[in-house]
């Protein structure tokens, strides 16, 4: 298509200048232009939350936003959650609590949880469930996800949580491949 435009934005802390069509959603721009395929396409109607990214501190469905609207914004995606090979506490807790099976919804849940904990480091269970209500999971169920977020909040605050089973899980129990996947935000 002809009418491509330049968009200057910040993605996971890095200034990015990209070229896209105005009609492309932010999700398409992330996946197809920048090859950041961690954000998933689910419903394309804002119901499932698989495409959730954090924009200027707020969780947003990247399928319901144009890529051009990211100009001047701070976009955080799942790819920026881990620091190099070191998983974010939330990612670690998702592994420890077995909070994922097929994993399609996981990047979205992690980004919603990240937005929540950045704003509210000590959420109640009700607050966690409310913050995650825009993310659907159709295989693991929500309890394990809520436990992981509760535990992550406690760990980040240096508390031990009721649901935590103390200390980090040895690397071998958390499948190396899965951790790598989560670190990269990839599904294959």
């Amino acid at each position, binding site marked *: *298509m002809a*009418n491509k*435009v330049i968009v200057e934005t910040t993605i996971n802390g890095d200034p990015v200048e990209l070229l896209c*069509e*105005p*009609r492309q*959603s932010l999700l398409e721009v992330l996946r197809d232009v920048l090859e950041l395929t961690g954000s998933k396409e689910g419903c*394309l*109607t*804002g*119901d499932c*939350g698989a495409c*959730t990214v954090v*924009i200027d501190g*707020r*969780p*947003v*469905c990247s*399928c*319901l*936003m*144009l890529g*051009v*609207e990211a*100009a001047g914004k701070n976009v955080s995606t799942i790819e920026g959650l881990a620091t190099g090979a070191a998983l974010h506490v939330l990612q670690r807790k998702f592994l420890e609590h077995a909070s994922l099976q097929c994993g399609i919804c996981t990047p979205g849940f992690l980004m*919603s949880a990240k*937005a929540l904990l950045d704003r509210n480091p000590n959420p109640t269970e009700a607050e966690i469930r*409310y*913050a995650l*209500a*825009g*993310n659907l999971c159709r295989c693991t169920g929500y309890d394990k996800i809520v436990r992981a977020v509760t535990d992550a909040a406690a760990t980040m605050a240096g508390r031990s949580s009721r649901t935590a089973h103390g200390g980090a899980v040895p690397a071998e129990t958390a499948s190396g491949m899965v951790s790598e996947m989560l670190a990269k935000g990839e599904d294959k």
Partner: protein
Amino acid sequence: MHAITYETPKSLDEAVKLMAAHGEKARALSGGTDLLIQLRAGTRRPEYVVNIKNIPELTRISFSLQHGLKLGAAVPCIEIHENGDMRKYYPGLTEAAHLIGSLQIQSRASVGGNLCNGSPAADATPALIALGAQARVVGPKGERMVPVESFCLAPGRTVLQPGELLVEFHIPAPERRASDAYLRFIPRNEMDIAVVGVGAALTLDMSDDRVVAARIALGAVGPTPILAAEAAKSLIGKPLDAAAIDNAARLAIAASSPIDDMRGTAEFRRHVVGVLTRRTLAKAAERARE
């Protein structure tokens, strides 16, 4: 999605010129939570999409006890909920905005978009009508104020003419011993479209607690949101007792014209209009007395 040209004006003036220049070919983009779905489905095919979120008048909440509220049409619902004045002085409108979808949706969706989309089930609209909100509309022919109850014409159709923009809502300053409430019925706890929504605003007398002013508005029970004027009028000058509330609920049912659809039968909806009118009035009164 079809190809579009994207514009992102920084001032109202610039936006009005753009909208006027492109007329029917242009559509405003607020949070995009309705519009992007419609663009993708091909049900709306504007050539120009005009982002209105960089325009100061459309993105601010300005409140004073003296002058009341100016609520920018594009302010995201989450900012309404996070605003202390909104929660304190307009709790009904605030709770309506906070019911719109998930946090992802509320981070984008605006009350202006909710109204301009023209859905009869839009949650914020009955709350705006109850508060007596006026919509400030600016277009190629100048400026006009439209009472929100007259804004919607049919499902998906509003008074907005090609090239016109909804800028902000003007909402009167809160009286003493006045408040509002909004309740909706949905089959689930969260994340659904209203089967019935009811907004109410009340002012009670300082000394004898009688109703001084009242407005009641209904959502999802007609082709447009409905101002139930008779129901509200019936309360004026009376103490808000069970008999008065029941009578208002009966008149609210009479003002509704629901249809049968997959979310509820007309008969069920009429019943729920009565239940929610009673509850919303009670809640608004409780808040007014605080």
